[in-house]
């Protein structure tokens, strides 16, 4: 399997570390909604087909990549930097803003 790292180009799977299912929404850090946290920490879709996932180019630029991979064929539909694409909508605080 090859993953085309947007920074380094096509590289062998052995250079990458799987970092779990992508597309998950991290609850607001201050949230005490245990259901939401439970969903974020434990619930996985286990998709057969197009699957959002996060890979780190651990043996390369160390970027985290938002990859859409077909779990049935290993075909990779898209690879993008997670920081530009895969970041969940929640869970962010403005830099420097301290409580």
């Amino acid at each position, binding site marked *: 399997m090859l993953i085309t790292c947007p920074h380094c180009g096509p590289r062998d799977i052995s250079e990458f570390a799987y970092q779990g299912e992508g597309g998950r929404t991290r609850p607001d*850090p201050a949230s*005490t909604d*245990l259901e939401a*946290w439970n969903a974020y920490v434990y619930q996985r879709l286990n998709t057969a087909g197009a699957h959002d996932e996060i890979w780190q180019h651990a043996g390369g630029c160390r970027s*985290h990549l938002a990859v859409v991979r077909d779990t049935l064929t290993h075909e990779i539909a898209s690879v993008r930097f997670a920081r530009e694409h895969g970041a969940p909508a929640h869970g962010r605080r403005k830099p420097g803003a301290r409580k």
Partner: protein
Amino acid sequence: MSSRRTAAGGRIDRLRTIRFTFDGRAYAGFQGDTLASALLANGVSLLARSFKYHRPRGVLTSGIDEPNALVTVLRGDIREPNIPATMVEIYDGLVAVSQNRFPSLAYDVSAINQLGGKFISAGFYYKTFMGPVVGPLKGTRFWMLCEKVIRRAAGLGRAGLAPDPARYERMNAFCDVLVVGSGPAGLAAAREAAASGARVILTELDPQFGGSANWSGETIDGEPSKAWASDIVGELRDHDNVRLLKRTTVWGYYDGNTLAAIERVGDHKDAPAKGAPRHRHWTIRAKNVVLATGAFERPLVFPGNDRPGVMMASAAQRYANLYGVLPGEKIAIFTNNDSAYRAAVALNKAGATIAAIVDVRPEISEDCRALARQCGAELLVGHAVVGTAGGKKLTGIKVAQFAIAAGALPSGGHNIETDCLLMSGGWSPTIHLASQAGARPLWNEALQAFLPPEAGQGWIGAGAFNGTFSTADAIAEGFAAGRAALDLPRVEPGTPHVEPAPLDPRPAPVFEIRAKGKAFVDFQHDVTADDVRLAHLEGFVSVEHLKRYTTLGMATDQGKGSNVPGLAIMAEAVGKPIPEVGTTRFRPPYAPVSVGALAAERFGDLKPERLTPMHDWHLENGATMYSAGLWFRPMIYGEAGETIEQAYVREARTTRETAGIVDVSTLGKIAVQGPDAAEFLDRVYSNVFSTLAVGKARYGLMLREDGLVFDDGTTWRLGEHDFLMTTTTANAGKVMQHLEYFLDVVWPELKVHLTSVTDQWAGAAIGGPKAREILASCVTGTRVDNEVLPFMGIVHGEISGAPVMICRLSFSGEMAFEVYSGAGHGTHVWEALVEAGKPCGMVPYGLEALGTMRIEKGHVTGAEIDGRTSARDLHLGWMLSKKKPFIGSAMMDREGIVAPGRLELVGLISLDNRPLAGGSHVVMEAYPENPHGSLGHITAACFSPALGKYIALALVSGGKARHGSRAHVSDPLRGRFGPVEIVSHHFFDPEGKRMHG
């Protein structure tokens, strides 16, 4: 040399005689012979005994699909079993032996199995040896009794026990087009692709390129096909952009157009060339693949079809044209299609008499009749072979009238004297690689074969692989495939003129002749047509189940020849057409692959070694080293005659009395820098770091998202935006990855940069009552007194000219300092510190003493942070900030994590003054014979010089509430049971007076 060798012809070098032995007898062949061709030339027809019945077997094919003639090749003590004799190229001194026979190939006592054949039919093992014991001769227990005998009787060659001295290597290759197979189609594709300048790899599993062009006897545009092929190969060799790999089997087709191939570099020589490996493994990444893998001729299934002397028609043609060997003198042909007629003519030309051509079809073309006449054969159309005669060698066949339409079993018949029967049951395209790539084959009724579907996953087929059996069309397809693989515009290929004109490729749909006697479908696993029918009778309808129950197609040849006949017989039994029965999916490897080639240089101890800058010093000063993950760390610096315990007790005691120094370079170190560094640390640590003053350090605790403890360590604020984080040695990589994930994926807006600086810093921790005095005596540029360097303070200075950074923090519980220097100065600074410590009697200490002092202090490490403990379990609840959320803060208060009765950190003191051991259980009752009711377990234990007792840290249910109570430790593995007192984990100096000084 022998009557079986023709006077001329073939690709062998008749001037170079090669001597070899088979089963201890010396034979001679020519350079270019395979073991099979050389033995056939010597008139040897018996090469093997079959798997179950020990029936005599000869050579059936001429290539990688050979199911019968498996041999073991010996090189000194090295045995290489189960190699098809058809794939062994002979060399001077080759030693090959037959397999699965006792005492000899000619007289095999186990051949008696044939008489009991009914009892070892399909499912024999399941029926006899599985399930409940219902008597002495059934069930799993019976199997255990019989296993040794059966394993010896049934099977293949014996693997060697000697270590393999051969060298293997692996290569990665990249290309625009990989052409698999170098027959006419593959050569045409490679030539066309190479001409455009693209990077091309052409692989061929045989020792020479050309495939069928080498033995078909055709002419292409007036030129003999052999010469046509070698012209193209010569042309390709001149291209810099082409890599030619012969003796190379592409055995796996994986996703992303990654293909695996094995090149047999040295097997055809008595010794590999200097520097050359035995096998070379190739991982080939191809933009596009042209599959020109050809087709296999299928056997016909009829009684006695396995007798030595029965052979595939195309194989015989190959032996005659490629090796100048006639497999028989008086040859009969049995076919359901036209292609065998060409084989008959070729063998006749080479000097054999063609006794008869038996064709199941009631009508054949005028072309075929002409070919039969040309070779002087008696032509028996509408006939079938219903039996073979002879013992270990064919002497004759029985032929009877056969009507396809009626499907009637033949009766009566007459005998024909012959010493070789060639059969042809049609052709199966070699679609294995396409199947591996996920293609579902499609049944073609006309060709009676599974063809590859539309090209997919970056491959294009050409030639016989596509069911295109005419050479001219195959070349045209190859040409088109070579262009299509590069997305070049289509050009109408000029179809070459091939002589003789192609025959009709369509066989009659006849796979089996049902008559009395064992008719083999899978020769290698001794699966007969009756076994397939029996499986159906017993309820097996899925082809996958059929395969597993009968083991059809599961031998080392993976059913290359037997797959389709087996399916056809099953389809007939089920009463469905073949495509509805379906076919099994082929999986890698296409052919056996040496494990050595897969491993290549990757054997033995593969772990890299991580050494601290002071490693050599430790060795020179008597350290016994200890591997901790990839790191090597001093365990003890033992003195003459000391036990490990005596050494660490001395080291720890001296440290607490005067001073000690320990190498802490292995701690993970991460530079956390940037305007948002403090905010970032507040989010990842459970306690607050943004309030930390510059020039101070703080102990920090990290949780995982699920609220359990992840790691701990101190983090130093070197500047407003500049932190140095330390992690435990074991978790350095994991923490780095954890931080990077959050920074990159969850909080990309934070302006923080992370750099792993573990290897850039050398660390020495010096502790003990005299530590400050020693440090003061060697540090310049800064004071180290309480005022300038308070607890958790950081100063910069120099030691012996090298810049150092000193933080006053303590793991040992003593007044202690961690001295960091650039890794290149590590030993220099270390030696200066050791020198400065000499007047007070400071000792270097190792991991054992370090562990002892941390147990005395009740500090946690990986043994307690085991992925199951919460901060509160470890009495670190005070580090969980209530002022801010952090990773794990939401999940750490879940019911189960705060439930009463969880295992909590406690201390244990041995009451019988005997050692305690990690992993022992803590139980309440003094019941050594039946220890039960575990309260928890010991995580770390030592002899404490400070207390003069054996002590331990433990995780015990109830924790603090049990302080002061008695319990027992139980360690049945080491035979240890004894009383302990449960106490606080702070054994020594609980107020921390010593480190605060």
